[in-house]
């Protein structure tokens, strides 16, 4: 490593690096330029839209035989038919509402529970918060899928139960993250300044702490929405989640897999592709948010 190089770097700094432009418009431009983020959000929006509009755009109802069973993909049934003659394409579309609905509802619920509690626990530094953190650590040490299975067994498998189960499993993650973020932010000069200025605690938490903790929480939320989808489809795949005839991607794969050995691949392959693409989209969004936070940190 040469001194030349470091001198060169210093020169560049002296000349002034290109500072990122400030302001909301510039920020929005930077976000829009992130291809991963745009692609991820577009896919999520598309899947959600497909789910919402399924009854309008699906060529067939989700549970109505359209003729011969196990027909390979072809005209009239793009993704083929399953073992009772349901149209796989229509069911993949209908399943979007269940899968992304559960994923988003569960993620929203766990955010709503975990974040306020985490911020309170982090800000007040109470023993109750410490205890809650320890308890949630213990629960998080269990293999997630096994706890989910146990809960599904105990609660009975219904879509609404799945939302609660997935939310229950994810809430500790936000609790912990929000708590850690708040513990750091609590000592930040701008928070101390508002305390000294006599601002009331709820206002400080909402105006100063929450916005600054939001980035990592959102990055986590996007990953978790993907996990929620994987968990939902996994539970349904083993029969402990959404049950047929309701269309759900994991349950569809389970049904299709019974005919896989006979070479009828389509009822297995297409729903899996739908899961993969959707989870990938959540991953892209999360990655983009994390990258931005990292960038902002480096700037400071």
């Amino acid at each position, binding site marked *: 490593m040469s001194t030349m190089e470091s001198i060169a770097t210093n020169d560049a700094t002296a000349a002034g690096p290109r500072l990122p432009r400030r302001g909301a418009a510039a920020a929005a431009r930077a976000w829009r330029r992130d291809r991963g983020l745009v692609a991820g959000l577009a896919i999520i929006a598309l899947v959600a839209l497909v789910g919402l509009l399924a009854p309008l755009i699906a060529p067939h109802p989700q549970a109505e035989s359209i003729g011969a069973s196990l027909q390979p993909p072809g005209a009239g049934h793009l993704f083929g038919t399953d073992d009772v003659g349901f149209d796989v394409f229509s069911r993949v579309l209908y399943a979007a509402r269940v899968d992304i609905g559960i994923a988003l509802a569960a993620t929203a619920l766990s955010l709503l529970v975990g974040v306020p509690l985490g911020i309170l626990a982090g800000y007040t530094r109470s023993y109750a918060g410490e205890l809650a953190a320890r308890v949630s650590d*213990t629960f998080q040490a269990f*293999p997630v899928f*096994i706890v989910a299975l146990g809960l599904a067994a105990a*609660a009975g498998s219904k879509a609404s139960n799945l939302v609660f189960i997935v939310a229950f499993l994810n809430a500790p993650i936000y609790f912990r993250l929000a708590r850690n973020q708040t513990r750091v932010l609590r000592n930040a000069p701008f928070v101390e300044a508002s305390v000294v200025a006599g601002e009331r605690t709820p206002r400080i938490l909402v105006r100063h702490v929450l916005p600054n903790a939001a980035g990592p929480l959102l990055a986590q939320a996007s990953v978790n929405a993907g996990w929620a989808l994987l968990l939902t489809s996994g539970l349904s795949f083993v029969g*402990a989640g959404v049950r047929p005839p309701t269309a759900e991607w994991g349950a569809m*794969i389970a049904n299709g897999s019974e005919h*896989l050995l006979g070479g009828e691949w389509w009822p297995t392959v297409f729903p899996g592709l739908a899961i993969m693409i959707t989870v990938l989209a959540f991953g892209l969004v999360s990655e983009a948010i994390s990258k931005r936070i990292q960038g902002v940190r480096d700037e400071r």
Partner: protein
Amino acid sequence: MGSSPSFGAFAVRRLALLLPQLFVVVTAAFVLIRLVPGDPAANFLGGSATQEAVDQLRVKFGIDQSILSQYGEFLSGLAHGDLGTSWRTSQAVTQDIGDRFPVTFQLITLTMAFSLLIAVPGGIMVAALGRGRRSRAGRAVSRGYGLLAGAMPEFWLGLLLILVFFVALGVAPGPFGLLDSDVAPPQSITGFVLVDALLTGNLSAFSSAAAHLALPVITLTFVTAAPLLRMTAGEMRQALGSDYVRFARAMGLSKGRVYRYALQSTAAPILTLAGVQYAVLVGGAVLIERIFSLGGFGQYGVEAVLASDYPAVLGFVTVAGTLAFVIYLVLDLVQGALDPRVR
């Protein structure tokens, strides 16, 4: 900087924590399973059962007692190594789980071994690309692989592999258990089929089991190795750019030695992630065992869940949680042995 406590003292302190921790774990398992609303007896019998039959079953299985006395019962059973009797198989749950556990342990251990074998050298290679175009390409590949592996449902990947390698190409055995039906299982010594086959010199059983384990292990390894690879690449990159590595290079140390130093400092985060993943694999194995009909602990758990077999479900969750804590314990001990600052 004061001198670090000895590893022995650290290990004793850490081990002393295990018992209270396990108490918390089994309590958590009980709370999870028994405090969730829903009537075990009614679930077990199904929707059409009469109230009378449900009540009879509640008495028979002792779930008519208060939740506290059930908890006491559960704890005293555990103290004697007793997890109750399965409602479904009418066998001791410990026996059921003990019979099946080696299958799972073998599966996840092989997966972890292969994941580390792929991820650590792979990560070092990506990091070694240095700066510039090749490095960007290397990182793009590891990023793409990471995103893909994180998005693929492992049960679906397993099915795809069956489709390609068994159904289409016919090079892998079918998903019908651990051994071909015409191969006699080796005498059970350790419970691990591969080990038992080797110990008894039963080579046909060994190759059959290895062939049957190939697809399940590849499936789980594909998913498990990705985060490890990314972590290794990132940490190594940082280590290779650090002052002490520059210094080591300036001293004229050999390349191999420099990499060894860099790797040493990245061992801790890699091991931590590997430990966490090992615990997660216990859950991931559930789906894979089911697809390949391996008859392991996870498959037993799913069957128990589907049958609402409460003692078995509770035993399943308890054992899985305990296992996770033992893994974390071993992880802490290894970290303590490697790095005096942890002690």
